[in-house]
């Protein structure tokens, strides 16, 4: 229940959520929650609904897609209030004192330009390039000009980590963090950090919207969240996408001139990304299912252990972990290793063991594809042709190698039965980035 009109600025919610004081407020506008003119579609999440599933026995329709945010149906109206940009004037809102490298500064200038000209732009920068810092100048410009800024990510961990950094960099500016599990109440603020799901509650709110990690689940390929993003931006707003691994949709938008792109293809230490080696291995999946590994893989692992080279061993599914673990145990090799997956109760401890050099290697699912750094490791992927490994996941996995300036190179080995489109796409993306980096 809301009672202050400012809580509705740039937001949308069912009329039933408004308190009495707002029922006849002149600033409150309404529109239908579900439209039934051309098929049935939800006006909050944009989903086209199947008549059979959306129908209620009282001849009404409800949206079964965004029902987790409270049910809306044809008997309801969505209330909203146009965004008035009622923010206090702040001179020099940026309190961050850090320095950018020359290439980072160029990207930061691009960001300002994107915001000024209200463009749609993709900032494609390899991991560890300092993306957040490159945003500060642009956000600074937007806040100075009284614009409303949104920073959204599909991953809640990204939002939680990002929020305090934004708060520290913009001490004088009102900021709010929104996600499904957040206890913090909503307050009308100039900077909003939230999950992409929370954008369903906004309507033409942001002059500037930044989407971080745009290629990951659940945003990637989710029509509802794409609609939410488009709906949360003002019709005249700017959108900035950030990722190290753009997906096909982004590439297509670039080709169709709907999106401009700038690259930061070089890592902070100035070395190229390690390229992948694909090794085709017959009957790989069958052997692993029988708890065995082919000779060439066993030999390679033995060689790495002999050379005291630490590595990550990626498998596609949780059930593969045990098969591979048993197959390696059976060889009685002198190495310490563990398996880890998302719901593993000892997940954090095992990753810490790997970090502290107490393990020679770690057998893992895709949970370690992003956001982890083990200096100087190599990477092996088993069954790289499995559907689980998207091209982006493979690029991110390859990106675990050579992150440290002490050992900026390393081996990335993909074992598979056939070279799938995802593997080829991964190979192409890495080579393209390296070409661009070499040209600098």
């Amino acid at each position, binding site marked *: 229940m809301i009672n202050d009109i400012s809580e509705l600025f740039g937001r949308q919610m069912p009329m039933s959520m408004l308190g009495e004081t707002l029922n006849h407020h002149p600033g409150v506008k309404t529109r239908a929650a579900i439209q039934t003119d051309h098929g049935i579609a939800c006006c909050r999440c944009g989903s086209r609904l199947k008549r059979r599933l959306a129908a*209620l026995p*009282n001849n009404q329709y409800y949206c079964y897609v965004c*029902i987790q945010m409270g049910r809306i149906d044809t008997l309801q109206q969505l209330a909203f209030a146009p965004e008035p940009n009622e923010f206090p004037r702040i001179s020099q809102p940026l309190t961050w004192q850090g320095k950018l490298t020359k290439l980072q500064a160029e990207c930061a200038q691009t960001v300002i330009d994107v915001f000024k000209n209200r463009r749609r732009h993709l900032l494609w920068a390899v991991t560890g390039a300092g993306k957040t810092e490159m945003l500060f100048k642009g956000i600074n410009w937007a806040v100075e000009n009284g614009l409303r800024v949104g920073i959204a990510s599909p991953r809640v961990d990204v939002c939680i980590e990002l929020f305090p950094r934004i708060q520290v960099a913009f001490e004088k500016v009102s900021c709010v963090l929104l996600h499904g599990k957040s206890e913090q109440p909503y307050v009308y603020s100039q900077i909003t950090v939230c999950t992409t799901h929370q954008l369903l509650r906004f309507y033409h709110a942001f002059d500037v919207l930044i989407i971080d990690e745009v290629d990951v689940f659940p945003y990637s390929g989710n029509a509802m969240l794409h609609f939410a993003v488009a709906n949360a931006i003002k019709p005249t707003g700017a959108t900035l996408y950030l990722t190290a691994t753009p997906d096909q949709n982004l590439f297509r938008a670039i080709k169709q001139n709907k999106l401009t792109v700038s690259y930061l293809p070089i890592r902070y230490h100035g070395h190229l990304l390690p390229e992948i080696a694909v090794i085709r291995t017959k009957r790989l999946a069958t052997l692993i299912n029988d708890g065995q590994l082919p000779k060439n893989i066993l030999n390679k692992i033995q060689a790495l252990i002999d050379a005291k080279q630490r590595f990550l061993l990626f498998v596609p599914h949780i059930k593969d972990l045990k098969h591979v673990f048993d197959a390696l145990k059976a060889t009685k090799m002198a190495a310490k290793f563990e398996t880890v997956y998302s719901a593993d109760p000892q997940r954090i401890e095992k990753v810490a063991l790997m970090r502290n050099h107490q393990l020679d290697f770690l057998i893992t699912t895709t949970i370690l594809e992003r956001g982890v750094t083990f200096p100087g490791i190599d990477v092996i992927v088993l069954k790289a042709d499995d559907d689980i490994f998207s091209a982006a996941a493979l690029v991110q996995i390859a990106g675990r190698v050579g992150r440290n300036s002490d050992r900026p190179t390393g081996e990335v080995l993909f074992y598979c039965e056939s070279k799938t489109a995802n593997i080829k796409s991964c190979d192409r993306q890495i080579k393209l980035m390296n070409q661009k980096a070499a040209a600098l």
Partner: protein
Amino acid sequence: MKHCLLCGEIIRDNISFGELISLRPISSHTVCHACRSGFNRLSMPTCDGCGRKLVSQMTNPCQDCIRWRDSGLPNLTNQALFEYNAAMKDFMKRYKFNGDYRLRYVFVSELRLALAHTKRLIVPIPVSQGTLATRGFNQVTGLLDRTHYHEVLKVTQDQKLIRQSEKNRRQRLDLIQPFELLKLQKNLIKDTPVLIVDDVYTTGTTIRHAAALLYQAGATDVKGLTLAR
């Protein structure tokens, strides 16, 4: 490709060789294996009165059912299909209180199977006019999708000012007759065995009041069937 109604994951059904050569229709699930395994199907021994699972030290009928004997309400035999556990509680929250009508398909075929051979007149427990207006559906008739039933009961006006689930046990037991018969349907019930269907059996008050009313109208024998206990 089908998605689980509860968690949205893709359902991967393994069809057995037996199923393949049996020429019978392949059973198609609306819920994935992981979600399905959260629900606990009630198996013998169960209480003859309310249908709950009997564990060691429990009498048959259970103490709750024995207490009902002096209540003035008719004795009742109820069969329950599933235990009211955490998964069922969550299901009810989403289906009834969030109003996700589509979720009826999670249990529609279970109820159809349970009711396939009954010769009794199937009578669902009704919901109040107020609930029907906001929720848009009766959760019991939703579960009886594609089953033939007769709506002979309605909730008396001024009832259900507090939702049943918001009352405590004492308040529920004190409840006066919440239902009345629809006049046109009275003849249907005379000299007919009846099966009352409800979503959850909690204290048994609701279903007993309904049974009392049906006996008054001349039903020969009344039994109960609930999705959960």
